């Protein structure tokens, strides 16, 4: 029965636009699906392989810029960016992995934290190549309606879900979890830890980059501060996974749903809107202290709270 849940949900989502939802609701849905792709990508690296990244904005922005620059310099459709971002992000992740993943512990987290900032500054300063703070604008978006964007991102999300699932069911997935649980033990069993950590980074980077390339096509405008921010993308990515559930296949989806809706609700409240980062921070601290494995991971704990005492055994 469990096997059929993803196709049923997918079919349900495919039929959703036929109901005739408003453009705003469609926009929210597109964002939720986009964030769940980024969350799945982070989860592969951070949740399953144990390499926490504080700089997924770097990958997201690289994807968005490879799409935007193709359009800007070569004049071809920005949709090609989704294909082009794959090799770009692979090379970029390989370089990053080669430098930072040889060492263990916090080095990788620190490197990624600085990386987003560095790319933002670079994009701001290379005015001739990236237009600097002016940003890149697509003069005519492909569709006015949100429906087709919804199907494109749904397809990408289904693909990402499948990739993550297949990877985690293969030998590769077991290597990742072994590295997360005990790197020395994994090493002593003959697992080339640096290689497999780099593979996880590449997969994660490519998936995030694809989401970034989609963002460029969907929003039609990017500049360094919208695609490389620390809090609004990198930390929200971490939160999507932490809230939903680390190392669970549905965690990122649930997390994206909660985070995007929460962000919309808080931002629309007068007076509190400016403090949305404070509320996010409090939520993050709350989750870390009380539900360290997220809503999906600690689901039993949550349902346990609502059961009568006797039923808890």
């Amino acid at each position, binding site marked *: 029965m469990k096997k059929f849940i993803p196709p049923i949900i997918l079919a349900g989502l495919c039929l959703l636009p036929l109901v005739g939802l408003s453009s705003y609701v469609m926009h929210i849905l597109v964002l939720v699906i986009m964030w769940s792709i980024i969350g799945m990508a982070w989860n592969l690296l*951070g*949740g399953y392989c*144990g390499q*926490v990244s*504080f700089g997924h904005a770097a990958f997201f922005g690289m994807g968005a810029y490879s799409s935007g620059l193709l359009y800007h310099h070569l004049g071809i459709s920005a949709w090609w960016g989704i294909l082009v971002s794959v090799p770009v992000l692979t090379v970029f992740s390989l370089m990053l992995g080669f*430098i*930072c993943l*040889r*060492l263990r*512990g*916090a*080095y990788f*987290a*620190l*490197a990624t*934290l*600085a*990386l987003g*900032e*560095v790319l933002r*500054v*670079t994009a*701001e*300063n290379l005015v001739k190549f990236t237009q600097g703070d002016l940003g890149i604008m697509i003069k005519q978006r492909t569709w006015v309606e949100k429906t087709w964007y919804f199907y494109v991102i749904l397809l990408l999300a289904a693909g990402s879900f499948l990739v993550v699932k297949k990877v985690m069911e293969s030998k590769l997935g077991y290597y990742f979890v072994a590295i*997360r649980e005990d790197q020395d033990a994994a090493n002593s069993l003959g697992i080339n830890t640096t290689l497999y950590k780099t593979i996880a980074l590449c997969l994660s980077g490519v998936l995030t980059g694809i989401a970034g390339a989609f963002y460029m096509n969907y929003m039609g405008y990017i500049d360094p501060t919208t695609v490389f921010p*620390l*809090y609004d993308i990198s*930390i929200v990515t*971490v939160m999507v996974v*932490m809230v939903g559930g*680390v*190392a669970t296949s549905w965690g990122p989806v649930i997390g994206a749903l909660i985070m995007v809706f929460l962000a919309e609700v808080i931002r629309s409240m007068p007076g509190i809107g*400016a*403090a*949305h*980062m*404070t509320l*996010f*921070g*409090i939520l*993050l*601290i709350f989750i*870390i*202290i009380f539900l*360290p*494995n997220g809503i999906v*991971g600690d689901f039993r704990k949550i349902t346990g709270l609502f059961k009568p005492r006797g039923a808890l055994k």
Partner: protein
Amino acid sequence: MAAQVELFLQTLISGFLLGGLYALIGLGMALIMGVMRIINLAHGDLMMVAMYVAYWLFTLFHIDPYLSVFVATPLLFLLGVGLQNFLINPVMKVESILPHNQVILTVGIGMILTNLATVFFTSNYRSTPVSYASKAWYLTDFWRDAPIELSLSAPWSLSFIVAVIMTVALWFFLTKTDTGKSIRATAQDIDAALLMGVNVGVMRAVTFGIGAALVGGAGCLFIPIYYLYPSLGKQFTNVGFVITVLGGMGSTEGAIIGGVILGIFESMTATYLGMGWAPVGRFLIFVAALVFLPGGVASILRKQRLGK
């Protein structure tokens, strides 16, 4: 030619002065890293809090920023102890899949501090216009026919001197007092320290407090020569961890040397490439340290001490 030499020397001087202040930021981070094995990613935001304390003391009561060091450091110490006791300690006990939960927690703390500062104080740039802000000493004042002209800014030098005094005080505290020795013991081996009767829990809280106090002091020293806005913390957190990696994770001597190296390097990038590239230079030095010197400056020092 003379102009080139002059520019170079001037950059070197200002880099060295900046390095002294950076060392103070790095020291607090290295201390926390050494004892608690976590990177405090709210470090720069704690500094931002101290800078606002100094700013409001100056604006409302006309207290000189250098005097507000005496207000801000105890305040930040209490804040640090509180954060450690009520937020970080409980998380250390929680079982979870990710090993980096405490680090993510400090990110959350930093996020809240930045956002609250934006809500309460707006994101305007602020500064403390002290009367001696543009005072400086010139080489030609002392040596009439010097071939080149160099200057030494008064607030920069004063900040540097106070930073050195604080560093020396910390050194005395860590090497001569019982509490300091217990902190160093905890950093070296937690289990052994526990067996020797060190109260590790208290030491953790004290260490986090001292780390916060040091960066708070650095904030007060920065405000006369810099400006202030709520999201400034991020940049100094980056500075702090680049120094920590450059100096060797958790090493205090390494942090001082790393701070000076970074300060000089950053001045050089600012002079020869442009101000905007400073974060890129910082990242390059970080990558270079990871590739060529993974143990940091501390590993070189250790080798020399062992006579290898």
